[in-house]
């Protein structure tokens, strides 16, 4: 339903042109979940913002970028070509693709009730009257597990608890009936028990509504619970992808291996935590060659710091961008 090819995003800044996302391609199928994993600064949020054309004014998509989306009515929409003020863009936002954010408190406006913001969205996309919109909103709040929805609908965001707000946020994003949901770290700000509830809820809603979903997180544990496919991002490129179970069982890229090792385990309480060493470089100081070579434990001097690795497919259905899995001369052939 969503096909992203060669997505590159550049920003004009005072330090010159920076390109925090380079040549990212992925697909989302109806009813399936793609997990986008990476540290802060890996470009995963910017990538999803580009899908809804929510990037700030100093950002631009490269000429090779193609983002196509099949709308609910069957039409193909070329998202990368839509003009900023086009009606079709407003229909896409909310009506076709819904988005939920990490901070439910900050993503609601504090000065309107939950119901006001839901009904606004419903009326924009479904063109129905006030009363009908209210009924739909109450129904949606009930669906996300909010008790007394017909009273809660008139509450302000600050009158709700954190988990409740995140449920309301999901209800808001789904109120116009999108076919694709982008969830940008929706559980990161919640405590663990509520996090599990919200994940369950999202999985159930996805099954009931048959939505495609892009789930962004830095937590591979969360990905394991919700995503069918996973794409690991580092400095604006996808370094590894595949079916979630396969990637978690046998990670190919040293970065994915590092991320998995960094998850604290209850079985190894006495061991020290093993973080991925170093920090993610700033996009202004992008390393030459493989972007990860500055932190890579298996770095091959003379290759990784000079040549950018190709995407290769060591196993069917998997791909990885790493010189450990390609031979230098052969380019695309598997190691």
């Amino acid at each position, binding site marked *: 339903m969503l096909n992203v090819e060669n997505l590159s995003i550049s920003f004009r800044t005072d330090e010159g042109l920076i390109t925090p996302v380079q040549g990212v391609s992925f697909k989302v199928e109806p009813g399936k979940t793609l997990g986008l994993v990476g540290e802060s600064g890996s470009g995963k949020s910017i990538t999803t913002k580009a899908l809804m054309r929510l990037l700030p004014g100093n950002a631009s998509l490269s000429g090779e970028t193609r983002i196509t989306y099949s709308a609910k009515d069957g039409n193909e929409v070329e998202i990368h070509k839509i003009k900023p003020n086009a009606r079709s863009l407003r229909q896409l936002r909310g009506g076709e693709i819904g988005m939920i954010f990490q901070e439910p408190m900050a993503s609601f406006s*504090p000065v309107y009730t939950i119901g006001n913001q839901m009904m606004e*969205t419903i009326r924009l996309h479904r063109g129905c009257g006030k009363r009908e919109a209210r009924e739909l909103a109450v129904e949606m709040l009930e669906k996300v597990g909010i008790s007394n929805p017909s009273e809660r609908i008139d509450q*302000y965001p600050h009158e709700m608890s954190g988990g409740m707000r995140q449920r309301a946020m999901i209800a808001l994003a789904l109120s116009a009936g999108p076919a694709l949901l982008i969830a940008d770290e929706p559980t990161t700000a919640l405590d663990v028990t509520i996090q599990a509830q919200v994940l369950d809820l999202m999985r159930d809603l996805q099954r009931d509504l048959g939505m495609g979903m892009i789930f962004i997180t830095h937590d591979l544990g969360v990905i394991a619970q919700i995503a069918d496919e996973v794409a690991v991002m580092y400095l604006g490129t996808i370094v590894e992808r595949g079916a979630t179970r396969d990637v978690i069982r046998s990670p190919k890229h040293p970065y994915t291996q590092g991320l998995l090792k960094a998850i604290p385990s209850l079985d190894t309480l006495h061991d020290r935590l093993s973080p991925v060493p170093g920090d993610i470089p700033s996009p202004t100081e992008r390393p030459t060659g493989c972007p990860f070579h500055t932190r890579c434990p298996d770095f091959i001097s003379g290759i990784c710091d000079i040549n950018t690795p190709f995407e290769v497919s060591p196993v069917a259905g998997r791909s990885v961008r790493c010189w450990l899995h390609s031979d230098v001369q052969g380019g695309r052939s598997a190691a």
Partner: protein
Amino acid sequence: MLRFTLERFVGMVITMALVSVMVFIIMEIPPGDYADRYAFRKFSGTGVSVTEADIEAIRSDLGLDKPMVLRYFDWIGGIVLHGDFGQAFAFETSVVKVIGDKAWLTLGIMLTTLILTYAISIPVGIYAAVKRGSSLDYGLTIFSYLGLALPNFLLALIMLYFANKWFGADIGGLLSARYQDAPWSLAKVWDLIKHLWLPAVVLAWSAVAYQIQTMRATMSDELNRLSVTAARARGVPEGKLLLKYPARLAINPIVSTIGFDVNRIFSELPIVAAVLGLTELGELLLKAYLDLDMYVAGAILLLLTFIIVFMNFVSDLLLAWLDPRIKLGA
């Protein structure tokens, strides 16, 4: 909202009562009173020797011999019960007659200036924030600094010159000569409006410059909020989005300083009025103080502070309407 309004209203009434006491005390502070001043005026240079008893007689004539507390209650009782602001000694008539029209004209200038200030600065500030970094934004910033740097009286002179040269506007006054003493009519109001815009533009000038910067700064902050991106991601059209989400909160610091703006306009009014030849209250207030004509001074001070207190009440209600968290937190 009703409860909140009532609370604020009661608060306003209490503030006004306290303010009236303070105003009365301020009226009493200058040494001497109108009885001294009257005796001096009447008999100085006539060779008549004035005794303490004569002054005391004048004082009792004017009702100034009673104790202060009693006089306060007489005064405030007259105002509240009969709209009677007391005697304007120097004019030998009532304060209401002296102040009357001038009060309305001053109020008219203030309101026109306020409306003009907000009608320009709020939309322009929003526009500048949305187009931040554009050449238009820089142009507006330069205008703002110019507006803040230019003294009012100079601006008044320049405006007066061009208004007269280009539009043939009358110089001076708020009313044309033939309407000066005419009863109020539609034609007179129209004549007033034709005269009012000039002082209003002069008085609004620096406030517009200042409030554009305020609006631009807060609007820029609000535009970066996640709630704005979230609303955009739900397909809310841009124009509606700007007004409903960021602008409603960005306007907050402007609304909360309405009272200050009223005060500032009144302080700047006398100089502008002097240049433009307007009659207004500020000038009268100064004169009343020099003459120790206490009830005139008191009435003007009271009116002014009441306007400010009332505007603060209005701004409280507006703020609560703009941001419901204020009401709930109160």
